[in-house]
């Protein structure tokens, strides 16, 4: 069970690391938000799935119940995180945050 759980948790950690790298290295608001929103929602779902499988190791009714609760958290994150990203992006668009462009294209 713990091997299967590691199969989910390790890619999740990899996506978290990539998302953090994106937040640090991308040039402007929108691209950073994309890195944060996409990687974090996918990675947290993967990590939670791994934890749920690991918790199912001794197969009893109580651990099954806890695993189902963890999966409900994953579903909730999967709905809420993209919506929050969408709301932040939209309000940035309305306020008028300029997206990053290459210098040659900006002159035209």
């Amino acid at each position, binding site marked *: 069970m713990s091997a299967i759980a590691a199969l989910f948790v390790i890619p999740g950690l990899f996506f978290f690391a990539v998302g953090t790298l994106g937040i640090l290295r991308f040039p402007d608001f929108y691209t950073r938000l994309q890195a944060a929103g996409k990687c974090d929602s996918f990675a947290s779902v993967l990590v939670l799935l791994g934890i749920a499988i690991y918790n199912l190791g001794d197969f009893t009714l109580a651990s099954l119940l806890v695993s189902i609760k963890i999966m409900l958290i994953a579903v*909730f994150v999967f*709905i*809420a995180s993209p*919506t929050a990203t*969408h709301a932040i992006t*939209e309000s940035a*668009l*309305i306020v008028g945050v*300029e*997206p990053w462009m290459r210098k040659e294209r900006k002159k035209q």
Partner: protein
Amino acid sequence: MKRLQERAQNRPTGESPIIRMAVRVMIPFIQLFGLYVIVHGHYSPGGGFQGGVILGASFILMALAFDLKTTTDYFSEKANAILGNAGALIFTGLGALTAILGGLWLDYSALDRIIPLGPIEWRSMGIFLVEVGVGLAVMSIMVSLYWDLASGGDMDEGL
């Protein structure tokens, strides 16, 4: 970029349909989770205050995604005031009742004289009753604080 910005500003339906749909899906589950936290308060993490805050946050989320008027349609100001006062009355009334029945303030085992369940069972049940009162009061205060702060006191428009 300019065209996208104009389209986002002049959209006729107000807030984005994606946000509305997601909020519509999430609110029942948030309220169910708030009730779960209140009911399980006496033997797992959580309790009246936390559950009340979650319940109040569900109405605040509704007011943020739609507008203040939709919230007051579902949950009127009068009902809010009645629920909040009922919560405070449950808490202080239970404390006073235990004191009148001969125990200390909020000593639930004194309630054994009304309904004989045994003092240990009544301690567990009494905590549950008080948690329900605290949850109702906290939910009502959270929602009315948000309503008054967002609309400047005159409950008409809001954010």
